[in-house]
């Protein structure tokens, strides 16, 4: 875990996270994330060689239900918060060039 976090790395992470950040935000985040990552270095001193990772506090196995048809949210309700809709579907900007 070496972390002299660079501005270029932070820009790369922002692209992965689909977050458009201002110059000032990138600057602040580079230093703040570096600080936080330095703090979590603390974990390096813990011997975890034979330790099973714990993803959940309650070890639940698959929870199944009967495969039966149920009502779902009506289309109108599902679309009611859509930023853009034609009443039948969610509308998004054109994805394919020249389509």
């Amino acid at each position, binding site marked *: *875990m070496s972390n002299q976090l660079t501005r270029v*790395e*932070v820009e790369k*992470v*922002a*692209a*992965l*996270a*689909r*977050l*458009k*950040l*201002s110059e000032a*935000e990138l600057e602040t*985040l580079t230093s*703040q*994330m570096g*600080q*936080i*990552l330095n*703090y*979590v270095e*603390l*974990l*390096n001193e*813990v011997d*975890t060689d034979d*330790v*099973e*990772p*714990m*993803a*959940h*506090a*309650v070890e*639940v196995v698959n*929870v199944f*239900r009967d495969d039966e048809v149920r009502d779902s*949210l009506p289309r109108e*309700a*599902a679309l*009611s*918060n*859509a*930023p*853009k809709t034609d009443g039948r579907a*969610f509308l*998004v*900007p*054109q*994805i394919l060039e020249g389509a």
Partner: protein
Amino acid sequence: MSITGATTGELLDQMNRGDVSCAEVVNAHLDRIESTDETIGAFLAVDREQALERAGDIDAKRSRGESLGALAGLPIAVKDVLCTRGQATTCGSRMLESYVPPYDAHVIEKLHSADAVIVGKVNMDEFAMGSSTENSAFQVTRNPWNLDHTPGGSSGGPAAAVAASMTPLSIGSDTGGSIRLPAAFCGIVGMKPTYGRVSRYGLVAFASSLDQLGPLANDVTGAALLLETMAGHDSRDATSLDEPVPEYSRTVDEGLKGLKIGLVREHFAEGLDPEVEQAVQSAVEVYQSLGATVEDISLPNSKYAVAVYYLIAPCEASSNLARYDGVHYGHRAENFENMIDMYATSRGEAFGDEVKRRIMLGTYALSAGYYDAYYLKALKVRRLIRNDFDRAFQQVDVIVSPVSPRPAFGIGELIDDPMTMYLNDIYTSSANLAGLPGISLPAGKSSSGLPIGLQLLAPPLQEERLFRVARMFERETEWHQERAPC
């Protein structure tokens, strides 16, 4: 006796005896909100008309002799993280500013069927990320005990609403301390139940392996009664536990004989405010005077809790918040170049600083080349933290600790220093990582007049024990009877 500031028990008694109507109780609290909340800033939305209509229905039911739910007529404030059908649910974020859920959360359904009266939605840190409620996109919430201080977070609205006697009850969510910390800062009772005890259906997700809903109240009995209503299995949340729900409010007054209390050596280290330490020691003496024995225990991995938490929670958050894409609901930017740019611009415009910071941290820690070093490492240390607790609870019934290293900090004091802000979670986050129930209750005052909280932790599904042990302390002390001067 005044109606506002009364406990749930007192209010229920008065309504059952017919001394006051539900409409009078709800009206008194709505008036209190109107006169006080301009100063406190707890409420994001108050639905006066609907609350009074509900109150009228409940009075009518009562006069017809119909049976009423366990919370009949009690006004309650709900953190704006729970979906309420037909009513805005913002999560403290510009992203969801105009979001109106088409369905009710499981807990909201439970409140309705228990005949509670929801008076409004209350403020929070954006997406429940924060320890001060300063990350709300909409307003500052002030600590009712001292208006220059924060109420804690992220459930600052729920805690301030109860502390300022605007409601006797509220509902919050707790991912790393977000119920217990504000309860402590505001001098009220707050409980985070066992992971899975309360269904998360309709709770806007932050970190799904840690999130849990819980009650806040002006006394232990009120919190017990509210959890009794909220808890229980729900097939719509696959992590919800299919275990019977005890009637916590019936047993709450039964003290525990032969109680064994654990004091964690590592908790009393550098960084703990002497007045907080003193309050915890005094609480231990109260228990000793009631016949409890105290044992020194060690949780050697507890010092890693904040580091583990600030990896796991951001990782889960970065994944959960990927759903805000400007397509299905939430904010969409007006100007963008293409589809990808629409996502990035919408998210860049509508998320606040703390949310961006956590999405970035989580994305980084989950990205190729870092996953093992950060995320997987954190999950392994998480197991060690849980193992420490399992060992400790073979020795003791409950663990007593501070809630936070110091009482409420000032508004603006830590906003530019995220790492110091995160360290406020040092005593609370391990309960989320281990999935344990924890309760915070008022246990003192600092020399500057700010409340100090006491935390009790118990093994999974031992909420009943926590309420009883908390009530033992409450009965011997008067901290819970004090009301904020605002």
